[in-house]
Protein backbone atom coordinates (compact mmCIF):
# COMPACT_ATOMS: atom_id res chain seq x y z
CA UNK A 1 0.00 0.00 0.00
CA UNK A 2 1.30 3.46 -0.91
CA UNK A 3 2.06 5.82 1.96
CA UNK A 4 -0.32 8.81 2.02
CA UNK A 5 1.14 11.81 0.27
CA UNK A 6 2.21 14.64 2.55
CA UNK A 7 0.32 17.87 2.26
CA UNK A 8 2.28 20.67 0.67
CA UNK A 9 4.01 23.24 2.83
CA UNK A 10 3.46 26.26 0.60
CA UNK A 11 0.11 27.49 -0.65
CA UNK A 12 -0.77 27.19 -4.29
CA UNK A 13 0.00 30.19 -6.45
CA UNK A 14 -3.00 30.91 -8.67
CA UNK A 15 -1.55 34.03 -10.24
CA UNK A 16 -1.01 32.52 -13.67
CA UNK A 17 -4.48 30.96 -13.76
CA UNK A 18 -6.96 32.33 -16.27
CA UNK A 19 -10.50 31.97 -14.99
CA UNK A 20 -13.69 32.74 -16.86
CA UNK A 21 -16.68 33.80 -14.75
CA UNK A 22 -20.09 33.59 -16.44
CA UNK A 23 -22.89 35.39 -14.61
CA UNK A 24 -25.63 37.61 -16.00
CA UNK A 25 -26.08 39.61 -12.80
CA UNK A 26 -23.42 42.36 -12.77
CA UNK A 27 -23.38 42.74 -8.97
CA UNK A 28 -22.75 39.03 -8.39
CA UNK A 29 -20.30 38.88 -11.28
CA UNK A 30 -18.32 41.74 -9.74
CA UNK A 31 -18.44 40.04 -6.35
CA UNK A 32 -17.18 36.76 -7.81
CA UNK A 33 -14.36 38.35 -9.79
CA UNK A 34 -13.21 40.49 -6.85
CA UNK A 35 -13.26 37.44 -4.61
CA UNK A 36 -11.35 35.26 -7.06
CA UNK A 37 -8.80 38.03 -7.54
CA UNK A 38 -8.20 38.08 -3.78
CA UNK A 39 -7.66 34.32 -3.90
CA UNK A 40 -4.70 35.11 -6.12
CA UNK A 41 -5.99 34.71 -9.68
CA UNK A 42 -4.63 37.52 -11.84
CA UNK A 43 -6.34 36.79 -15.15
CA UNK A 44 -10.11 36.89 -14.86
CA UNK A 45 -12.52 37.10 -17.76
CA UNK A 46 -16.15 37.97 -17.39
CA UNK A 47 -19.07 36.87 -19.56
CA UNK A 48 -22.61 38.04 -18.90
CA UNK A 49 -24.31 35.14 -20.64
CA UNK A 50 -23.68 31.60 -21.70
CA UNK A 51 -23.40 32.77 -25.30
CA UNK A 52 -20.71 35.30 -24.43
CA UNK A 53 -18.89 32.67 -22.39
CA UNK A 54 -18.82 30.37 -25.43
CA UNK A 55 -17.31 33.16 -27.53
CA UNK A 56 -14.59 33.71 -24.94
CA UNK A 57 -13.81 30.02 -24.64
CA UNK A 58 -13.52 29.85 -28.44
CA UNK A 59 -11.34 32.94 -28.49
CA UNK A 60 -8.89 31.68 -25.86
CA UNK A 61 -8.96 27.90 -26.19
CA UNK A 62 -9.64 27.09 -29.84
CA UNK A 63 -5.95 27.28 -30.70
CA UNK A 64 -4.27 24.27 -29.03
CA UNK A 65 -0.89 26.00 -29.07
CA UNK A 66 -2.01 29.21 -27.40
CA UNK A 67 -0.28 30.01 -24.10
CA UNK A 68 -3.35 31.92 -22.90
CA UNK A 69 -5.86 29.15 -22.44
CA UNK A 70 -8.69 29.60 -19.97
CA UNK A 71 -7.94 27.16 -17.14
CA UNK A 72 -11.29 27.06 -15.40
CA UNK A 73 -14.86 28.20 -15.98
CA UNK A 74 -17.06 29.26 -13.09
CA UNK A 75 -20.61 29.58 -14.29
CA UNK A 76 -23.96 30.51 -12.89
CA UNK A 77 -26.75 28.04 -13.61
CA UNK A 78 -29.60 30.39 -14.51
CA UNK A 79 -28.77 32.95 -17.18
CA UNK A 80 -30.74 34.40 -20.07
CA UNK A 81 -29.33 33.78 -23.52
CA UNK A 82 -27.83 30.37 -22.81
CA UNK A 83 -27.74 29.00 -19.27
CA UNK A 84 -25.04 27.11 -17.39
CA UNK A 85 -26.33 23.71 -18.48
CA UNK A 86 -26.17 24.67 -22.14
CA UNK A 87 -22.68 26.12 -21.69
CA UNK A 88 -21.34 23.00 -20.00
CA UNK A 89 -22.85 20.69 -22.62
CA UNK A 90 -21.37 22.87 -25.37
CA UNK A 91 -17.96 22.65 -23.71
CA UNK A 92 -18.15 18.87 -23.34
CA UNK A 93 -19.38 18.45 -26.94
CA UNK A 94 -16.38 20.29 -28.37
CA UNK A 95 -13.97 18.46 -30.63
CA UNK A 96 -11.05 20.42 -29.20
CA UNK A 97 -9.22 19.01 -26.19
CA UNK A 98 -8.49 22.46 -24.74
CA UNK A 99 -12.22 23.07 -24.61
CA UNK A 100 -13.88 19.74 -23.91
CA UNK A 101 -11.69 18.94 -20.89
CA UNK A 102 -12.04 22.41 -19.37
CA UNK A 103 -12.78 22.26 -15.64
CA UNK A 104 -16.15 23.80 -14.86
CA UNK A 105 -17.52 24.86 -11.49
CA UNK A 106 -21.27 25.30 -11.49
CA UNK A 107 -22.90 27.80 -9.10
CA UNK A 108 -26.54 27.52 -8.23
CA UNK A 109 -29.02 28.21 -5.49
CA UNK A 110 -30.53 24.76 -5.75
CA UNK A 111 -30.15 22.56 -2.68
CA UNK A 112 -26.87 20.77 -2.41
CA UNK A 113 -28.47 17.43 -3.31
CA UNK A 114 -30.19 18.83 -6.41
CA UNK A 115 -27.14 20.67 -7.65
CA UNK A 116 -24.85 17.69 -7.21
CA UNK A 117 -27.17 15.69 -9.47
CA UNK A 118 -27.47 18.51 -11.99
CA UNK A 119 -23.73 19.13 -12.05
CA UNK A 120 -22.90 15.44 -12.28
CA UNK A 121 -25.22 14.83 -15.21
CA UNK A 122 -24.32 17.97 -17.14
CA UNK A 123 -20.59 17.26 -16.96
CA UNK A 124 -19.50 19.90 -14.46
CA UNK A 125 -16.45 19.12 -12.34
CA UNK A 126 -17.69 20.77 -9.20
CA UNK A 127 -20.79 22.49 -7.88
CA UNK A 128 -21.12 25.37 -5.49
CA UNK A 129 -24.37 26.05 -3.67
CA UNK A 130 -25.26 29.71 -3.25
CA UNK A 131 -25.06 31.93 -1.26
CA UNK A 132 -21.45 32.33 -2.20
CA UNK A 133 -18.62 32.67 0.28
CA UNK A 134 -14.86 32.87 -0.08
CA UNK A 135 -14.39 29.56 1.69
CA UNK A 136 -16.84 27.76 -0.58
CA UNK A 137 -15.17 29.20 -3.66
CA UNK A 138 -11.67 28.35 -2.43
CA UNK A 139 -12.82 24.81 -1.58
CA UNK A 140 -14.26 24.23 -5.05
CA UNK A 141 -11.18 25.59 -6.81
CA UNK A 142 -8.96 23.47 -4.58
CA UNK A 143 -11.01 20.37 -5.27
CA UNK A 144 -10.59 20.87 -9.00
CA UNK A 145 -6.81 21.14 -8.56
CA UNK A 146 -6.30 18.48 -5.90
CA UNK A 147 -8.77 15.84 -7.01
CA UNK A 148 -9.28 15.84 -10.77
CA UNK A 149 -11.31 12.89 -11.95
CA UNK A 150 -10.71 11.04 -15.18
CA UNK A 151 -13.07 11.87 -18.02
CA UNK A 152 -15.52 9.25 -19.16
CA UNK A 153 -16.98 8.92 -22.62
CA UNK A 154 -20.05 6.75 -23.03
CA UNK A 155 -22.71 6.86 -25.76
CA UNK A 156 -24.76 9.22 -23.56
CA UNK A 157 -22.25 11.13 -21.54
CA UNK A 158 -18.91 12.88 -21.70
CA UNK A 159 -17.46 14.49 -18.63
CA UNK A 160 -15.66 13.88 -15.36
CA UNK A 161 -16.26 10.46 -13.86
CA UNK A 162 -19.56 10.71 -12.01
CA UNK A 163 -18.31 8.40 -9.30
CA UNK A 164 -16.42 10.39 -6.71
CA UNK A 165 -15.26 7.32 -4.84
CA UNK A 166 -13.99 4.22 -6.52
CA UNK A 167 -15.46 1.41 -4.51
CA UNK A 168 -15.95 -2.18 -5.50
CA UNK A 169 -19.48 -2.73 -6.80
CA UNK A 170 -21.27 -5.41 -4.80
CA UNK A 171 -24.55 -5.60 -6.76
CA UNK A 172 -25.66 -7.65 -9.73
CA UNK A 173 -23.25 -7.60 -12.69
CA UNK A 174 -25.00 -5.53 -15.36
CA UNK A 175 -22.08 -4.05 -17.25
CA UNK A 176 -22.38 -4.34 -21.00
CA UNK A 177 -18.63 -4.11 -21.45
CA UNK A 178 -16.06 -6.09 -19.54
CA UNK A 179 -13.50 -3.95 -17.69
CA UNK A 180 -10.70 -5.09 -20.00
CA UNK A 181 -12.68 -3.89 -23.02
CA UNK A 182 -12.76 -0.32 -21.76
CA UNK A 183 -10.33 1.81 -23.66
CA UNK A 184 -8.10 3.92 -21.45
CA UNK A 185 -6.08 6.87 -22.70
CA UNK A 186 -3.29 8.39 -20.63
CA UNK A 187 -2.26 11.90 -21.56
CA UNK A 188 1.47 12.57 -21.56
CA UNK A 189 3.22 15.85 -21.03
Amino acid at each position, binding site marked *: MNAPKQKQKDPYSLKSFRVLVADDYPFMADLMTSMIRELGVEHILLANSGAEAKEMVMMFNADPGSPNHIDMVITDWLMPGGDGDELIRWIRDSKKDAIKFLPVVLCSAYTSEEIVTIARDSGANEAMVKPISAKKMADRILHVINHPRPFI*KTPNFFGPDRRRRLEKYKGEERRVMKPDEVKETHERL
Partner: protein
Amino acid sequence: MSDSKNENEVEIYHRVNKLKLKAGAGLHDGDGFIDLHSIKRAQAVIDRKETLYMNEVEDVLKKLRVAWEKMQSDDEETIMHGKEELYHYANHVKDLATTYNYQLMGHFGSSLRQFSEKIDVENKMHFVIVQAHLDVMFIVYKEHIKDEGGDKAVELKSIVAAAIKKYF
Protein backbone atom coordinates in the same frame (compact mmCIF):
# COMPACT_ATOMS: atom_id res chain seq x y z
CA MET B 1 -11.36 9.98 -29.76
CA SER B 2 -11.75 6.79 -31.71
CA ASP B 3 -14.57 6.21 -34.17
CA SER B 4 -15.41 2.77 -32.88
CA LYS B 5 -18.55 1.13 -34.19
CA ASN B 6 -19.31 -0.33 -30.77
CA GLU B 7 -22.30 1.68 -29.58
CA ASN B 8 -21.70 0.69 -25.98
CA GLU B 9 -18.08 1.69 -26.01
CA VAL B 10 -16.71 3.34 -22.91
CA GLU B 11 -13.50 5.31 -22.93
CA ILE B 12 -11.61 6.70 -19.95
CA TYR B 13 -9.27 9.64 -20.33
CA HIS B 14 -6.62 10.12 -17.69
CA ARG B 15 -5.38 13.66 -17.99
CA VAL B 16 -2.17 15.20 -16.72
CA ASN B 17 -3.03 17.52 -13.86
CA LYS B 18 -1.74 20.67 -15.50
CA LEU B 19 -3.50 22.92 -13.03
CA LYS B 20 -1.43 21.47 -10.23
CA LEU B 21 1.73 22.19 -12.17
CA LYS B 22 0.51 25.68 -12.96
CA ALA B 23 -0.17 26.27 -9.26
CA GLY B 24 3.47 25.54 -8.54
CA ALA B 25 3.24 21.97 -7.28
CA GLY B 26 4.61 18.73 -8.62
CA LEU B 27 2.35 16.08 -10.12
CA HIS B 28 3.10 13.65 -7.34
CA ASP B 29 2.89 16.14 -4.49
CA GLY B 30 0.15 15.80 -1.92
CA ASP B 31 -2.84 18.07 -1.67
CA GLY B 32 -2.14 21.77 -1.74
CA PHE B 33 -4.06 24.64 -0.20
CA ILE B 34 -4.95 28.26 -0.72
CA ASP B 35 -3.41 30.77 1.64
CA LEU B 36 -5.82 31.40 4.52
CA HIS B 37 -5.13 35.14 4.45
CA SER B 38 -6.23 35.23 0.80
CA ILE B 39 -9.48 33.50 1.72
CA LYS B 40 -10.06 36.01 4.53
CA ARG B 41 -9.36 38.91 2.16
CA ALA B 42 -11.76 37.43 -0.38
CA GLN B 43 -14.48 37.13 2.26
CA ALA B 44 -13.79 40.72 3.32
CA VAL B 45 -14.56 41.80 -0.25
CA ILE B 46 -18.00 40.22 0.03
CA ASP B 47 -18.59 41.65 3.48
CA ARG B 48 -17.56 45.18 2.47
CA LYS B 49 -20.05 45.23 -0.37
CA GLU B 50 -22.93 44.70 2.02
CA THR B 51 -23.04 48.49 2.32
CA LEU B 52 -24.26 48.49 -1.29
CA TYR B 53 -27.10 46.09 -0.57
CA MET B 54 -29.92 48.60 -0.10
CA ASN B 55 -29.14 50.55 -3.28
CA GLU B 56 -28.64 47.38 -5.25
CA VAL B 57 -31.84 45.69 -4.12
CA GLU B 58 -33.77 48.88 -4.84
CA ASP B 59 -32.35 48.89 -8.34
CA VAL B 60 -33.33 45.27 -8.99
CA LEU B 61 -36.81 45.81 -7.53
CA LYS B 62 -37.31 48.70 -9.94
CA LYS B 63 -36.27 46.44 -12.81
CA LEU B 64 -38.75 43.85 -11.57
CA ARG B 65 -41.47 46.47 -11.66
CA VAL B 66 -40.55 47.41 -15.25
CA ALA B 67 -40.65 43.72 -16.21
CA TRP B 68 -44.04 43.47 -14.55
CA GLU B 69 -45.29 46.48 -16.53
CA LYS B 70 -44.15 44.80 -19.73
CA MET B 71 -46.19 41.75 -18.80
CA GLN B 72 -49.29 43.92 -18.74
CA SER B 73 -48.72 45.14 -22.28
CA ASP B 74 -50.96 44.19 -25.23
CA ASP B 75 -48.03 43.04 -27.32
CA GLU B 76 -47.31 39.32 -27.04
CA GLU B 77 -43.58 39.69 -27.60
CA THR B 78 -43.32 42.38 -24.91
CA ILE B 79 -45.30 40.17 -22.50
CA MET B 80 -43.00 37.20 -23.04
CA HIS B 81 -39.94 39.41 -22.73
CA GLY B 82 -41.32 40.80 -19.47
CA LYS B 83 -41.99 37.28 -18.19
CA GLU B 84 -38.42 36.21 -18.86
CA GLU B 85 -37.06 39.34 -17.19
CA LEU B 86 -39.30 38.79 -14.20
CA TYR B 87 -37.81 35.32 -13.77
CA HIS B 88 -34.22 36.50 -13.98
CA TYR B 89 -34.61 39.62 -11.83
CA ALA B 90 -36.41 37.59 -9.17
CA ASN B 91 -33.42 35.26 -9.26
CA HIS B 92 -31.09 38.25 -8.85
CA VAL B 93 -33.03 39.44 -5.81
CA LYS B 94 -32.73 35.99 -4.30
CA ASP B 95 -28.98 35.75 -5.01
CA LEU B 96 -28.30 39.21 -3.63
CA ALA B 97 -30.48 38.86 -0.54
CA THR B 98 -29.23 35.41 0.44
CA THR B 99 -25.60 36.50 0.05
CA TYR B 100 -26.19 39.05 2.80
CA ASN B 101 -28.59 36.96 4.83
CA TYR B 102 -31.65 39.08 4.08
CA GLN B 103 -33.79 36.03 4.60
CA LEU B 104 -37.24 37.48 3.97
CA MET B 105 -36.25 39.22 0.73
CA GLY B 106 -34.49 36.01 -0.32
CA HIS B 107 -37.65 34.06 0.43
CA PHE B 108 -39.80 36.30 -1.78
CA GLY B 109 -37.19 36.41 -4.55
CA SER B 110 -37.10 32.64 -4.57
CA SER B 111 -40.89 32.38 -4.41
CA LEU B 112 -41.38 34.81 -7.29
CA ARG B 113 -38.75 33.05 -9.41
CA GLN B 114 -40.42 29.71 -8.82
CA PHE B 115 -43.84 31.15 -9.56
CA SER B 116 -42.66 32.91 -12.71
CA GLU B 117 -41.80 29.48 -14.16
CA LYS B 118 -45.49 28.60 -13.91
CA ILE B 119 -47.14 31.87 -14.94
CA ASP B 120 -49.82 31.57 -17.56
CA VAL B 121 -49.81 35.01 -19.18
CA GLU B 122 -53.40 34.44 -20.37
CA ASN B 123 -54.57 33.96 -16.80
CA LYS B 124 -55.07 37.33 -15.13
CA MET B 125 -55.45 35.61 -11.76
CA HIS B 126 -51.78 34.77 -11.95
CA PHE B 127 -51.04 38.46 -12.26
CA VAL B 128 -52.52 39.03 -8.82
CA ILE B 129 -49.90 36.68 -7.41
CA VAL B 130 -47.08 38.57 -9.12
CA GLN B 131 -48.48 41.86 -7.82
CA ALA B 132 -48.66 40.43 -4.30
CA HIS B 133 -45.00 39.43 -4.49
CA LEU B 134 -43.94 42.86 -5.71
CA ASP B 135 -45.99 44.65 -3.07
CA VAL B 136 -44.48 42.71 -0.20
CA MET B 137 -40.95 42.93 -1.61
CA PHE B 138 -41.17 46.72 -1.70
CA ILE B 139 -42.47 46.71 1.88
CA VAL B 140 -39.59 44.47 2.98
CA TYR B 141 -37.17 46.84 1.28
CA LYS B 142 -38.70 50.06 2.66
CA GLU B 143 -39.05 48.70 6.18
CA HIS B 144 -35.61 47.09 6.04
CA ILE B 145 -36.90 43.73 7.30
CA LYS B 146 -34.14 41.16 7.35
CA ASP B 147 -35.32 38.04 9.15
CA GLU B 148 -38.17 35.70 8.33
CA GLY B 149 -39.37 35.13 11.87
CA GLY B 150 -40.84 38.46 13.02
CA ASP B 151 -44.56 39.29 13.16
CA LYS B 152 -44.40 41.53 10.11
CA ALA B 153 -42.48 38.93 8.14
CA VAL B 154 -45.02 36.25 9.02
CA GLU B 155 -47.85 38.57 8.01
CA LEU B 156 -46.25 39.37 4.63
CA LYS B 157 -45.56 35.72 3.92
CA SER B 158 -49.16 34.88 4.71
CA ILE B 159 -50.36 37.53 2.23
CA VAL B 160 -48.40 35.93 -0.59
CA ALA B 161 -49.33 32.41 0.47
CA ALA B 162 -53.01 33.40 0.50
CA ALA B 163 -52.73 34.94 -2.98
CA ILE B 164 -51.10 31.78 -4.33
CA LYS B 165 -53.72 29.57 -2.67
CA LYS B 166 -56.63 31.64 -3.96
CA TYR B 167 -55.49 32.47 -7.49
CA PHE B 168 -53.26 29.61 -8.61
